[in-house]
């Protein structure tokens, strides 16, 4: 029933999180080699450990994202530590956003976000292939129109 998001989202997020850590590891390694204190090697090691942890965590986070199109509503779930599920009736949709930042575009993913009249509705789906995002947007818009209700 649940449609997963693209694994490219994990790649994009991993690379983004790895960049600062790579700098840390490199700087730590250079420092340790120059100064010659063995204890300083803990810095690059900690960086590597952080990177490994982020790698696993991002994988689980991306796996946790999912959405399901039902007849009258859209379900979006996400979160590893704090799990969340939101149900948005199509008739309650006010508008749909499709966003893609420069990194997203480089990896060929986009984010679809649904807005209702409530500011608390947190229904965004990151990491959709652009064609799927466009399809979902059009589908949501047409379904919303068919079931449109006032407030």
């Amino acid at each position, binding site marked *: 029933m649940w449609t997963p998001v693209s694994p490219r989202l994990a790649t994009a997020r991993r690379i983004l999180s790895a960049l600062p850590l790579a700098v840390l590891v490199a700087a730590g390694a250079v420092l340790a080699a120059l100064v010659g204190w063995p204890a300083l090697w803990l810095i690059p090691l900690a960086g590597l450990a952080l990177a490994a942890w982020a790698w696993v965590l991002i994988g689980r986070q991306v796996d946790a994202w999912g959405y399901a199109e039902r007849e*009258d*509503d859209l379900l979006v779930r996400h979160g590893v*530590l*704090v*799990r*969340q*599920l*939101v*149900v*948005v*009736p199509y*008739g*309650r949709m006010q508008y749909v956003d499709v966003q893609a930042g420069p990194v997203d575009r480089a990896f060929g993913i986009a984010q679809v976000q649904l807005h*209702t*009249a*409530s*500011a*608390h*509705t*947190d*229904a965004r789906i990151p990491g959709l292939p652009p064609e799927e995002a466009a399809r979902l947007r059009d589908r949501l818009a047409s379904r919303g129109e068919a079931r449109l*209700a*006032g*407030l």
Partner: protein
Amino acid sequence: MSGAQGRQAYADGEWHRLHPLTPALRSWRILVVVLVIGVQNGADNLLSGDFNTPPDVNGRLLAGGGAIILVVLAVGVVYSVLSWRMSRFRVGPEALELYTGVLFRQHRQARLDRLQAVDVVQPFLARLTGLARLTLEVAGGSGSAVSLSYLTDGQAQSLRNHLLARAAGVRYDTDEAPEAPEQVAVSVGAPRLVLSLALSGPSLALALGTPLLIVVALAIGNVGPLLGIVPTAFGAISLLWQRFAGQFGFLVATSPDGLRLRHGLLEHRTQTVPPGRVQAVRLSQPLLWRIPDWWQVHANVAGYGGSSAEDAPGTESTLLPVGSRAEAIAVLSLVLPDAGVQPGEHPGEVVDAGLSGSTPTAGYVVVPRRARWVDPIAWRRTGFRVTSAALLIRRGRLRRALDVVPHARTQSVGLRQGPLQRRLRLVSFTLHSTPGPVSPEVPHLDAATAARLLAEQVDRARAARASSGPERWMER
């Protein structure tokens, strides 16, 4: 353009100007701001003990300051007059249109079928001159309202009646829209309002904090602590004054146009919220109000918006600042005439159990006992009750609250589970409503109960939407 002739003339589909006194009222505000800044600066100079400057320097400073004030004032007046000249509005059959702006032009259109509330506001000065501002709220987020300031009071009221009649789908043959008859349901007397404010958080903090600090100051023989509290005390007093002035003479009335609220000491406000425009209601009771069993009622109305924080809801979102339990329930029944309880059940009992009950009586589903690990104080009270018309959520042990959301006004629903809750097999259920003081949530429900509630609530909301009345509420 005055008197009876002017009144009807506004709804003729032509462009009209606002009242010619508008620029005077607006520049008065600028004058006040300039004066306040001037006085503050002067006071700062005095306080900093700058007495040693020669008198002629002081004189020159004064003359310079006066010149600056005059220039600012002149610019302000010219701008106000220009902006009045540039503003015009039109009342069409489907929408209210407003053109404004001198440099940046704005054309705003509010569709009458999207109307959420109409307010007639008279700020103090406008009240003295018999003018009023008409504000039409539509559900477009903050800053989407169309505000006509200023019209004469009579014009504003007759225009409001016209707009409401139009939005309701009422056709009338007379020259002027008939004023919907009002029936006062609840009025709040000044003594009760004062007492309720005395029993509220800010005054309690003042009453407890000031003597404490005096003792401390005496003990250490230094007035430092007392001086430190002055800004806080000033803030508390101004908050109390704001509430008192805003909620003075509060009247809740019903009319075919919907709920009508009148209140205000200096600035007088008349709000009209048509039927079905209230998205969610909260009846709540601050701790000390338990002694006289008083309650306050707030509501989410799309357009009144999210500017109001949870702790200090804006005056607009207040349906009743203070009232007895019976009065609070009366206001709730005005907003939600059909409670949708089961046959043989009394709606009053269901609401009563929601206000002060703490057991699974009156059909309330409560959270399991293991929720005490995450919510040791309020877990006994937390619970919900579903009727055929609305979802009732009761919460809070120290500050009791009952949230009521009609099924037809549900936006979206969600579940949320943190790591601790997962171990205890608990899930929080959230119902998303439009921005406002009410954010309905049932925390720490049994996981299976929450899942069932979510599924059922989605179905109930859909069914209620499908069978809810038309947007034009008189066309039923």
